[in-house]
């Protein structure tokens, strides 16, 4: 039974098109599919078999059931801004795009929660409730465009999670389509601590390998009475990172505590949102404190003192909201800004105990020297979440491989000091092998065992998150081949 307007012999395209309402909700031409061959992680590219655009949970469930019945690999995709390749169709998957499910279903300010569809864009939630004095706390840098569904899959963080926690701390309920098409509801009515193993917590951050989230109940917060942001320039990185530790040790919990090094500053200053950071500075700290206005001034004074004691060159508070917004735009577009000083970059996402910052930065510097690639550092210094950006040019043979090696070495450095390989970007395809830096085989098996409970056929987003046991050599090879094929 052919579907009107669909020009292919692939019967599954017709089969799927029927489930989502015809040709306007499915893509299958190669020229269209190319746009879906990668997400924000561009090193691995694979074409999907098709992309379907369901409008509601029932359509998602139907598509999932169809794929399960016909043994078609499939995966879910939001805005495709993930940085670890979680939405790349490694096995010619059918992509279930959730971007047309972008409604804000309800807002319940009294009880501080909102219900959204997975394709709803993160920042739009805050924008919809801002006039009534509320906001949604997790604020990944991509919040202008990333979807909350994707945030749940990746357990997204953001600049302000130092004080307010990451996505998992703000999810109250989920509606999930399991890999066999069954619809379940976790955290009914958004009430916490539902009896039973915490599947809500498990699902959050499972990178789309356990089920497809179709409805999300999130916690929303009241805007702080006041916010103040301080910018501090340091002539050496050690002073900057010491200042970070000192601020925390002084008993201040900043809403955000961000740092950029010299190379990163060069990037953001050359890009779309420059703010005039001095070129010769080694590190800039962006410190934000929020809360009750009368208490904030006291904390700001303390922060200024701490910075002064650590030989700050210049430190000042934002004059007004406009300046504050400019500083943040400069910081939040930091990754993309690297495009302005390098044709390609690879961003890593290690986390380290805050106190080990200086030595890890030193090690990264060494890695940069060893590989001959520049590495910019942008990071959430407050919670030790490091984003080394390895700058390279994919057009030069061998550079991509070198960049991958450098990135991996940075993660090893983080793991070596008791840290981890990813704080908010997820493992995806990119860091499958690096999982071994932090987990023993038994620990990885313990996790794949859980996946089997939800996703026994492994049709949903296979090949992500875990190294293939005993095949690590092959995975590396596969990765290399993929690169060379580009």
């Amino acid at each position, binding site marked *: 039974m052919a579907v009107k307007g669909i020009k292919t012999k692939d019967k599954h395209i017709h089969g799927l098109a029927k489930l989502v309402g015809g040709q306007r909700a499915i893509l299958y031409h190669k020229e269209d599919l190319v746009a879906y061959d990668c997400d924000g992680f561009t090193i691995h590219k694979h074409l999907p078999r098709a992309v379907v655009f369901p409008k509601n949970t029932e359509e998602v469930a139907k598509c999932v059931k169809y794929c399960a019945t016909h043994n078609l690999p499939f995966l879910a995709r939001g805005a495709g*801004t993930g940085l670890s390749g979680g939405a790349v169709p490694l096995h010619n998957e059918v992509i279930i795009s959730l971007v047309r499910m972008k409604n804000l279903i309800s807002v319940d300010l009294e009880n501080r929660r909102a219900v959204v569809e997975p394709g709803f864009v993160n920042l739009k939630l805050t924008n919809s409730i801002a006039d009534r004095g509320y906001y949604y706390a997790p604020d990944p840098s991509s919040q202008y465009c990333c979807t909350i569904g994707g945030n749940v899959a990746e357990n997204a963080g953001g600049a302000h999670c130092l004080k307010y926690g990451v996505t998992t701390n703000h999810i109250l309920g989920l509606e999930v389509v399991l890999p066999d098409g069954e619809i379940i509801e976790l955290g009914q009515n958004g009430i916490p601590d539902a009896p039973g193993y915490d599947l809500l917590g498990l699902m959050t951050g499972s990178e789309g390998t356990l089920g497809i989230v179709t409805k999300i109940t999130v916690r929303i917060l009241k805007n702080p009475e006041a916010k103040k942001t301080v910018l501090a320039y340091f002539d050496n990185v050690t002073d900057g990172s010491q200042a970070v530790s000192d601020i925390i040790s002084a008993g201040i919990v900043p809403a955000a505590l961000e740092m950029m090094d010299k190379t990163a500053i060069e990037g953001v200053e050359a890009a779309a949102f420059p703010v005039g950071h001095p070129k010769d500075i080694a590190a800039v700290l962006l410190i934000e404190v929020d809360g009750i206005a009368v208490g904030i001034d006291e904390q700001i004074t303390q922060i200024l003192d701490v910075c002064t004691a650590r030989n700050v060159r210049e430190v000042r508070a934002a004059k007004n909201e406009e300046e504050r917004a400019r500083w943040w735009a400069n910081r939040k577009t930091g990754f993309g800004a690297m495009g302005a000083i390098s044709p390609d970059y690879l961003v890593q996402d290690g986390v380290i105990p805050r106190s080990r910052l200086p030595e890890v930065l030193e090690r990264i510097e060494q890695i940069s020297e060893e590989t001959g690639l520049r590495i910019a550092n942008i990071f959430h210094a407050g919670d030790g979440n490091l984003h080394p950006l390895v700058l390279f040019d994919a057009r030069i043979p061998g550079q991509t491989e070198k960049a991958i090696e450098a990135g991996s070495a940075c993660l090893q450095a983080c793991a070596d000091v008791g840290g981890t390989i990813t704080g908010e970007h997820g493992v995806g395809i990119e860091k499958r092998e690096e999982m071994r830096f932090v987990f023993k085989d038994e620990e990885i098996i313990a996790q794949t065992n859980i996946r089997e409970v939800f996703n026994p056929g492994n049709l949903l987003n296979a090949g992500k998150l875990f190294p293939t046991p005993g095949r690590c050599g092959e995975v590396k090879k596969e990765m290399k081949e993929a690169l060379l094929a580009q």
Partner: protein
Amino acid sequence: MVKQAEIKENPPCTTQKSLSNYLWKDHPDENKWADCTHCGMCLESCPTYELTGQEQHSPRGRVHLIKSVAEGKIAVNEQFMDPVYTCLDCRACTTACPANVDVGGLIEEARGQIRQSMPLTGAKGAVSKLFLNGIFPHQNRLNSLGGALKLYQKSGMQKVIRKSKLINVMPKHLVEMEAIMPKVHMPVKKKYKNESVIPAKGTPKGDVALLTGCVMDVMFSDINEATINVLTRNGSNVRIPQNQTCCGALHVHAGDRDSGRKLAKQNIKAFSDAEKIIVNAAGCGCMMKEYAELFREVEPEWHDRAVAFSEKVEDVSKYLYDTGYEKPKASINKRITYHDACHLAHGQNVREEPRDILLKIPGVEMVHMPNADRCCGSAGIYNITNPEMAGEVLESKMKNVPDDVDMISMGNPGCMLQMAMGVQKYGRNQKIVHTVQLLDWAYQKERAEEEENHGSEGN
């Protein structure tokens, strides 16, 4: 940074020209997509992505496709054409992009390839041809069409026009309403045919040349007149070079880069003596600032002249803002909202200047329009070639227009037509005006009041 020489001598596999499926001259510029890191920051800025949710209809998706053709992964064909031509060329992505990727430029270059390999066919082709080759470059034909209604009837837009009572957009309406502004029926280029310079009133501050535009001068000659008025009023001698022609924006948007180049060269020559080229149509200004792009690969000997030309081009609002203008004394007691024309805000980064002009007019109450820099769907002749998408973009635009305003001001004729259509279609009652018209109106009113005062004093 990578040394350019190294790449050229030793082309790595990804850049081997032999792989590329761009088989015609004037290739899309590799350096433009090299900066794109596929981060996705552009997605939400894109009206067509907002409406379709499909990545091939998003800026980074289009860049990705354009790059994929160069890499030989896909061919230049109908399927590739669709996303490339569905782009509104509104440049909102350029503003959103952290790495300043010139998506608009890439789109135009890719369209050039498509036009060369797949000459236009079907209804879309006929419409495009009628406008691009049949009308816009030919001033006399435009004139003989005698105005907007006929032009649009010819183009199959009759139905829309009938519904939309385009008269709302006509400056004539303003004239009737306030009986202040002079009636103008003649294109200014024709009117001032024999005047080499329209002299400044008072002490001259400088000389400028005015681009009268093709559509502008026929359908909106009042705006040109208003532009001349405010320029001379504020001390500029205005010249109207008679050899000037259509800026070519619509041709380049449509992929007809050869025509674009032809028109560009004629304008470069026509304005060669000008110190400053003043434009009151955002789309034209933006195009003229980008002439050099047309000569990147083809006829490169024109490249430097194009660069020099572009440096002289300025939007009228920015020129007034930068060189100073008199604050009118008469009040216009209206509630006004401002719509950022894409090619002014995103294309030329002119946002504050026109707002400043409006705010300087006594009595004007500015009302904020959310997402003011969102495309209205006009996009050159996009509303004619892709009416369905243009309609949806317009619908989403109109939702943002505040209910309680008297006028919507903007700096681009294409937007004025589209917004007028929106006002009509969604049962609104705002008047559509060009920013300089309002300023001129205030000046006219001021003079009328002064004359009246003098009169009464005399009595």
